[in-house]
């Protein structure tokens, strides 16, 4: 069954049974995370329809992290807090914006805040041995 996938680095959208191993645009390996049809539509500038359950998103980020050098934070309390914020932002603003950063109301700029975002460049992650994304949803495997 075909699904929607989004590159967490450059936000390219792919529709297919499997995501590309290598992103054709930014050339990052294992960069695609499964997203909802609604998110895909919103990222392409279309009205959203078809949400993504919290449970489904949890599964998607686990599968995404499993093939990478990072994992979902083992601190389940922190993860639950963040999922509350992501769900609230999706409901109110149409996309799962990071609960620890505020949107500027510039869509192109704000698309960089949709979880999972390109946290590989965050100063809290890049080159940090026990690095994590800004909000702490993803942590480097140690």
């Amino acid at each position, binding site marked *: 069954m075909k699904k929607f996938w989004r590159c967490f680095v450059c936000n390219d959208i792919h529709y297919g049974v499997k995501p590309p191993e290598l992103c054709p645009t930014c050339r990052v390996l294992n960069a695609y995370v499964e997203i909802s049809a609604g998110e895909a539509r919103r990222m392409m500038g279309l009205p959203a329809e078809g949400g993504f359950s919290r449970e489904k998103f949890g599964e998607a980020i686990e599968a995404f992290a499993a093939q990478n050098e990072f994992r979902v934070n083992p601190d389940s309390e922190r993860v639950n807090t963040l999922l509350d914020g992501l769900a*609230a932002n999706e409901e109110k603003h149409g996309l799962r914006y990071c*609960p620890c950063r505020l949107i500027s109301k510039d869509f192109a700029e704000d698309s960089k805040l949709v979880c999972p975002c390109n946290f590989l460049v965050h100063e809290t992650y890049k080159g940090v041995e026990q690095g994590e994304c800004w909000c702490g949803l993803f942590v480097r495997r140690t």
Partner: protein
Amino acid sequence: MKKLILFHARECPHCRKMMPLVDRLEKEEGVVMERLEVWHDEKNADLMRSYKPILAPKCEGQLRTPTFFNTETNDVLCGEVPYETLKDWAKK
């Protein structure tokens, strides 16, 4: 007049960690911090956005929470910081 603002978000784990430090600072140093939640209060969000030219350069170009802002000196702290750092910022 000096005004200390904390821009925070309800579901931000960093903000939750910093709150007890802010409580302690207010109690021990007699300062008052205005705590403004930005994801569930559009007025607060607009206020934070209005300070973007000052705040963002100190926070990797973005509006992040928690952000501590001194409106008089424009001194900004971004993210989780130790108590002493917060105290030094507040006493400036």
